[in-house]
């Protein structure tokens, strides 16, 4: 796919500079350019929540033999996503594009999405970041996406007429309410167009995806494409509806048929009068890896490469006596802070913090203490801990251990150190890369 509107580059006009920059952006992106084929992409499944329901989507099933958007085998945390990217990059160096496409809507999970984008940008400043969204929360999140360095954006817009929309979207969650019917569709369409306009104004390359649904929006794609052209969207991707009844989607169960090849071509031809069409989309999963059409099996990859184990861990100890691990997590007003590595145990300044538990028989309902302040610790040693804080800490990847209850602090730390040493030995063995030849 070439861009016909490119002016010859004269180096002076900022416009042509922008165009050449755009051309460079597009050429390497498999979802924007046919020639992008030689470049690989990775979709990171970090965003499970969704704020709308589409009739062609069912979030219940995940089968690794299915290839359709909205399915993943395993969610990743932002940190794990960055690790996966590093591994894939080692394996497939032509990975130039990192996309977040779900399995829900990335912008319904703004924290996870932005954290992942930032983590990726940190390990590779050369990579193209992109996000694929339904557009409902786009206006709210656009600034943070720009700040994170996202230059490619895909919005799925299936129609710009709410009468059609209410046959595609049964509900939309907006401003704290589940909207239904025409109101839901109108809200979604309005927000999509607002977001589209703002993203284009901000200089993003915007692709628009449209799912072609025979009898519902097939007669509408022509006017939709006209409108998209007016807004200045970069490329239009009309994808055939997938409505296999076994996927359990509303359309699948209600017998809504998929478009034929001819219908798809006709729709692309009609829309092609006002929008450049993309025809090589593979409708890949939200955790796809590799070049289009030749996906890499991620599970094999994950098992074949191991990263070196972390060398130091941060340990917090709850102790009344300052020599034994003899304090309940909820009663601690400070933690002893140690940095443990294979070669040394270093005590740092005590970590002062407000007691988690007031000591009453009943926990105070309003006392939702912010445990995220403890997330820079890898391990917390204490004599006891309640279920709720332990759960919440495990979400911050903080391991709480009561194994050393009432034992000596120094001895416990030595045991942890021993564990680190044996880890280091295994990861330094020559075969740990699993790629001996």
């Amino acid at each position, binding site marked *: 796919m070439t861009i016909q509107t490119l002016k010859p580059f004269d180096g002076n006009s900022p416009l042509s500079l922008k165009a050449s920059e755009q051309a460079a952006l597009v050429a390497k992106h498999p979802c924007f350019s046919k020639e992008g084929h030689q470049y690989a992409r990775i979709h990171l499944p970090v965003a499970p929540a969704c704020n709308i329901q589409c009739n062609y989507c069912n979030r219940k099933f995940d089968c690794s033999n299915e290839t359709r958007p909205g399915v993943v085998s395993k969610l990743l945390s932002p940190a794990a996503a960055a690790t996966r990217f590093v591994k894939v990059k080692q394996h497939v160096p032509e990975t130039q594009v990192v996309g977040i496409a779900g399995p829900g809507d990335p912008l319904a999970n703004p924290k996870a999405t932005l954290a992942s984008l930032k983590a990726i940008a940190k390990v590779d400043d050369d990579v193209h970041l992109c996000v694929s969204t339904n557009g409902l929360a786009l206006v709210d999140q656009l600034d943070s996406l720009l700040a994170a360095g996202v230059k490619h954006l895909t919005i799925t817009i299936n129609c710009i007429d709410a009468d059609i929309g209410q046959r595609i979207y049964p509900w939309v*969650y907006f401003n704290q309410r*589940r909207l239904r019917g025409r109101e839901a569709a109108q809200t979604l369409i309005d927000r999509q167009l607002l977001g589209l306009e703002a993203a284009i104004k901000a200089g993003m390359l915007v692709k628009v995806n449209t799912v072609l649904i025979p009898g519902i929006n097939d007669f509408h794609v022509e006017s939709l494409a006209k409108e998209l052209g007016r807004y200045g969207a970069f490329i239009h991707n009309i994808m055939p509806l997938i409505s296999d009844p076994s996927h359990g989607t509303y359309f699948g169960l209600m*017998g809504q048929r998929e478009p034929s090849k001819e219908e798809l071509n006709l729709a692309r031809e009609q829309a092609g009068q006002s929008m450049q069409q993309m025809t090589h989309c593979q409708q890949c999963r939200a955790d796809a890896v590799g070049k289009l059409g030749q996906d890499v099996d991620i599970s094999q990859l994950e098992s074949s490469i191991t990263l070196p184990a972390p060398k130091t861990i941060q340990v917090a100890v709850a102790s009344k006596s300052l020599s034994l691990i003899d304090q309940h997590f909820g009663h601690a007003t400070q933690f002893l802070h140690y940095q443990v590595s294979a070669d040394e145990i270093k005590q740092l300044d005590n970590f002062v913090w407000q007691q988690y538990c007031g000591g009453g028989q009943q926990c105070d309902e309003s006392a939702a203490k912010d445990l995220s302040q403890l997330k820079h610790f890898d391990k917390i040693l204490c004599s006891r801990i309640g279920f709720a804080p332990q759960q919440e800490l495990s979400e911050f990847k903080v391991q709480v251990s009561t194994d050393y209850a009432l034992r000596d602090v120094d001895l416990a730390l030595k045991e942890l150190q021993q564990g680190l040493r044996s880890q280091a030995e295994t990861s330094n063995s020559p075969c740990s890369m699993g790629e001996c030849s």
Partner: protein
Amino acid sequence: MAFTITKACIACYACKEVCPSKAIISDDKQFSVIAHRCDECAKNVNGAQCAQICPVETAIVDANGCALNPPGSLTGLPQEANVIALS
């Protein structure tokens, strides 16, 4: 006065994203409500936030075990047993 998350939950995190009381916790696949934090969004005119966004029918029930999103309320799929989907 607290909701419960049932086995129908698909672990999509949506409720956790929107819960104003930080009452929903998860480990990998199992989501649950911390009872003493959940006030069923009693003061919110828009209703219980988890129930407003949950995409799965019967995944959240109230203190009496009643589903906040009963069967058929979200998908629009006909619930009568005698309706057979055309294929």
